[in-house]
């Protein structure tokens, strides 16, 4: 190996190393998800006593949403169904089809999406399409008489009836 070849190898190796050392952190920085800022948060969403068994009611509450470097407190709603004294289900109002807000039609005993007329039973199961999966549910916890809502759990396709 003469001096020229040695120089060439050194030049290529050094530039390749510097390129990698810059490119890898840059890729990680851009592609890696941010570290979660806080543990899962429970939001107070009213009292259980005021709910009637078998009648979904729309509960409006405020919850904190992390948006990059901001935490915004925003209004959120949930359709809450009391199945028995100690059994509460809270549905996300977002239709699993394209995200319109569903509402309860008391006359027909079903949730209706106004966009494409998907309907869901009081259990959240799809009655008529185009929605492919049941309504998503909030995680629910009760502390005494207070209803606490956690994050929304995405329903699975298999559960569709």
């Amino acid at each position, binding site marked *: 190996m003469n001096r020229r070849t040695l120089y060439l190898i*050194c*030049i290529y190796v050094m530039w390749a*190393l510097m390129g990698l050392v810059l490119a890898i952190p840059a890729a990680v*920085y851009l592609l890696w998800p*941010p570290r979660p*800022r*806080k543990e899962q948060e429970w939001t107070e969403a009213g009292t259980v006593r005021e709910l009637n068994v078998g009648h979904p009611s729309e509960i409006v509450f405020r919850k904190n949403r992390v948006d990059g*470097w901001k935490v915004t407190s925003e209004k959120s709603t949930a359709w809450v169904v009391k199945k028995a004294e100690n059994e509460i289900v809270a549905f996300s109002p977002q239709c699993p089809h394209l995200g319109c807000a569903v509402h309860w039609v008391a006359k027909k005993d079903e949730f209706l999406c106004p966009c494409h007329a998907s309907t869901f039973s009081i259990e959240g199961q799809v009655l008529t399409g185009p929605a492919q999966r049941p309504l998503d549910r909030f995680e629910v916890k009760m502390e005494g008489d207070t209803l606490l809502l956690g994050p929304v759990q995405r329903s699975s396709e298999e559960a569709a009836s």
Partner: protein
Amino acid sequence: MKMLQRRLVDWIEHRTGLESAVKNFLFEEIPASSGWHQVFGSVAVFLFLVQAFTGLLLAFNYAPTPGDAYNSLKYIVTELTGGALIRGLHHWGASMMIVVVVLHMAQVFLYGAYKKPREATWGVGVVLLLLTLAYGLTGYLLPWDNRAYWGTVVTTQIASKAPLLGPYVSRLLGGEDSIGVVTFARFFALHVLLLPPVTTFLIAFHIYLVRKHGVAPAPGDTRPPKKFFPDQVFKDTLAIFAGFILLFVLAVAVKVPLERLADPTDTTYIPRPDWYFLFLFQILKSFEGPLEVMGSVLLPTMAILALLLVPLLDRGAAKQLAQRTIAFSFIALAAIGWTALTVTAIVTTPEPVTGSAERGTAVGGWQQLSPEALAGIGYYRKEQCESCHNLTDGKAKVGPNLSTTPIKRSVGWMVGHFKNPAQMVPGTSMPPIHLADTQLSALAAFLLTLTPDNATDLESAPGKVLEGAMTYQQHQCGTCHIVNGVGVQLGPTLNGVAGRRSKQWIEVQIRNPKRHSAETMMPAYNLSQRDMDVLIEYLTALPAQ
């Protein structure tokens, strides 16, 4: 395979001429005397590219308005993987770039490489040095922390002192009265929109001029010229590589400061510019009164003019390096002067006042707190301050950790801050707290007793007791009773009441004091059962004294 590659290169060459352009660039002839002393220009260009790259990455997650700027930078540094490294590279890269540009200039100066016909190359180089300093000046404000804010206050004040032009310059920088959103927007626009294209153009022009006139040979060098590639390219690359390793180590090992959010009302902050401007800062301090303009404007302007005029003043024939004694003495004088000024500036920086010393007397546990401060913990929880602040160590949140951040404020200032945070701390994203004045001063009282030592204990105060303290404060029990030494001695001191009376007795005493003693001064309080329960819970939790 080899043939396919050849055909591909030929195809590209035929359409773009790239191959011959690269070859033309690399196989340029340079004097045989070229060598290690000429690597600094390449290192400076490399550092400029690193600055552009890391700056772009930072901009992907940076919101260029005060307040948001600080929060987004904090987000970059604490929540994004690799964010701290990229900010470190950008921060230290800026310092290194100034060092390398000055070294490059010193080398050219020592060797007399600015002489005819290379005067224009030198002039463009001087402008590039000024642009490098302009990056440092404008970039310093962008984190919008206390250091950035106060450092920029000093520099815009200096600019405003220029004769004739001063008011216009400070109007252009948006810093006529104070520094705010306008100055910030202008500095940001200069730093990322104006300076980079201008610098890129001037670097290209500078290199074009170097190529046009050829690298300056040592006088009397009659050896045949050599090729730029690979001999000199290897030397340049090795120098760049060494610089890069140093930069990387700095970025990883030395934490770049991010102080608290810029606070224009902070009278205790000692503003200092970044290290490379300290000598100017020190010159300024040596001139007082009407002479101040000497230090702030005249001297720097004359220095810049002198630099630009160097090739016109020194027009003698090229000399050997060893014979350039005047150039050597200039460099030595400049180095000594700069070092002396910088060291003086560092040594004379006063010690910052530490916050903890000015805090109220540290209180051990929550049982020892005044009812007001204890009620303050209650309001702290009720208003969910903990969604943005930490009291103890924990995951970083939007707001500062309240036990470790020094609070050097009056209760009045804090109440004003709670009511309208942005008025006291421009750019803060803290929402106003909607509580009555007495409740806000309770919150302030709590925060003023908070130290890193008692934070855990205060945070553990039971909820019922806090509600009780809030009830106690709301009904102004302290106008007749003393708790933990705070209050008025009309009625009995309430410490240790649990040892003297039963809960039932206390409840009767509050609801209907006349039943225990007909002459009592105490009015009856018709509290709700919940308020009564928590108040008694609080009173019976008080320590005996």
